């Protein structure tokens, strides 16, 4: 009976809910998971790929991880086409800030700016909200390394560890158990991969089904964004004991 309130995106239902926003979040909960973990010397993003095919040109593009600016990257979960629009918007906002202030945009301001855009689609214009959730990982000189999660409503929060996409509640409670403050980047990588492997549907795990990225500082003090190659990722999965070495027969 509340169906009559959900075709218009920008009105409240009698119970005070925004159905379109909730339906957008529903779409995301069917998408590939992404996990972010904040370490004291970096931020780790790990994600599950849904499109796996040998024919994919994986060296040229990533499915889940995107660089917004030199000091900010994000992982997406949800409708990829929507995500592309928002990523482009975020990149524009970051460059506009740098044009005006000749400095990198503080991470929270970038997230806030993007979330203001997302909020607009829940209040006016009559267009549906974006079916994407983001995990933003970045570094700035004000607050160091930061991790933010944002959803279609335009809400965002700063997190020490967060999960979006499929099974995100299970992942979030696992992260809550195993996360400790002062975690190092190495431990964060292990935690993210471990939690991701446990919450993923597939029975066999391999680098082809995962993407891994991290934000860290080089010894010279520059922000580095690194995406793991499939080979390095496979090695790491073996080292952490998440996959077993292939038996030689």
């Amino acid at each position, binding site marked *: 009976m509340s169906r009559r309130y959900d075709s218009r995106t920008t009105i409240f239902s009698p119970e005070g809910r925004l159905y379109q926003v909730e339906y957008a979040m529903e779409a995301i909960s069917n998408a590939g998971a992404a996990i972010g973990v904040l370490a004291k010397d970096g931020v780790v993003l790990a994600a599950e790929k849904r499109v796996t095919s040998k024919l994919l040109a994986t060296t040229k593009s990533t499915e889940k991880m995107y660089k917004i600016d030199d000091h900010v990257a994000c992982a997406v979960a949800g409708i990829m086409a929507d995500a592309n629009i928002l990523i482009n918007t975020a990149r524009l906002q970051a460059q506009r800030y740098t044009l005006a*202030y*000749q*400095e990198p945009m503080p991470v*929270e301001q970038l997230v806030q700016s993007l979330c203001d855009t997302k909020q607009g689609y829940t209040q006016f214009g009559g267009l549906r909200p974006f079916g994407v959730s983001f995990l933003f990982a970045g570094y700035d000189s004000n607050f160091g390394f930061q991790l933010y999660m944002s959803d279609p409503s335009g809400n965002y929060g700063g997190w020490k560890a967060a999960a979006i996409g499929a099974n995100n509640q299970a992942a979030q409670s696992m992260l809550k158990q195993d996360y400790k403050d002062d975690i190092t980047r190495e431990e964060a990588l292990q935690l993210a991969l471990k939690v991701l492997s446990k919450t993923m549907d597939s029975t066999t795990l391999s680098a082809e089904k995962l993407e891994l990225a991290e934000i860290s500082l080089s010894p010279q003090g520059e922000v580095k964004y690194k995406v793991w190659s499939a080979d390095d990722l496979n090695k790491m999965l073996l080292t952490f004991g998440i996959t077993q070495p292939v038996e030689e027969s």
Partner: protein
Amino acid sequence: METVFGLVGDGFALVVTDTSAVQSIVVQKTDDDKIMVLDSHKLMGCTGEKGDRVQFSEFIQKNIALYHFRNGIPLSTAAAANFTRNELAVALRKNPYQTNMMIAGWDKDVGPSLYYLDYIATLHKLEKGGLGYGAYFLLSLMDRYYEKNMSVDKALELVDKCIAEVRARLVVAPPNFVIKIVDKDGARTLAWRKTVEEMSGPPSE
């Protein structure tokens, strides 16, 4: 005939402007403070078209305050100077502000810094600089006598040399100057150099 100049010393930066407000041949005010305090640790000495000067410097001051309210952190001096330059540059080919300025600030990680910004949006980070007719005289004085990391007293000696030169050599030299300083303790007025006071009251009987 307005002059603005500034220099960087040991942990501080100074900005000096004349304080005459002139309309045609009349000096309306001899104590017109042209150095706006942009925030706790930033100064902007602004000269030029009277209306533009106040309008633009207040606009920048309010935008800097807005940034601080919105984001919980203040702008760095470099960011504020570049923001100001951008505003001038955008307005330049529409409705230009005819104002020249020296922007000085103190940041925790960088220390004191000084920026030259003229009316066509030329921005330079400098140790010493000036604008206006007075600059023709005081730039060479500063080239000769400026040293890095001067104390406040030594810097004031140089400032006084510059003011004396402007008073001696500029045909319609402004009589009074104000000196403001910005350092780790903030932005504030340091001193005035007056030769003329505003008059008030009828002569005593």
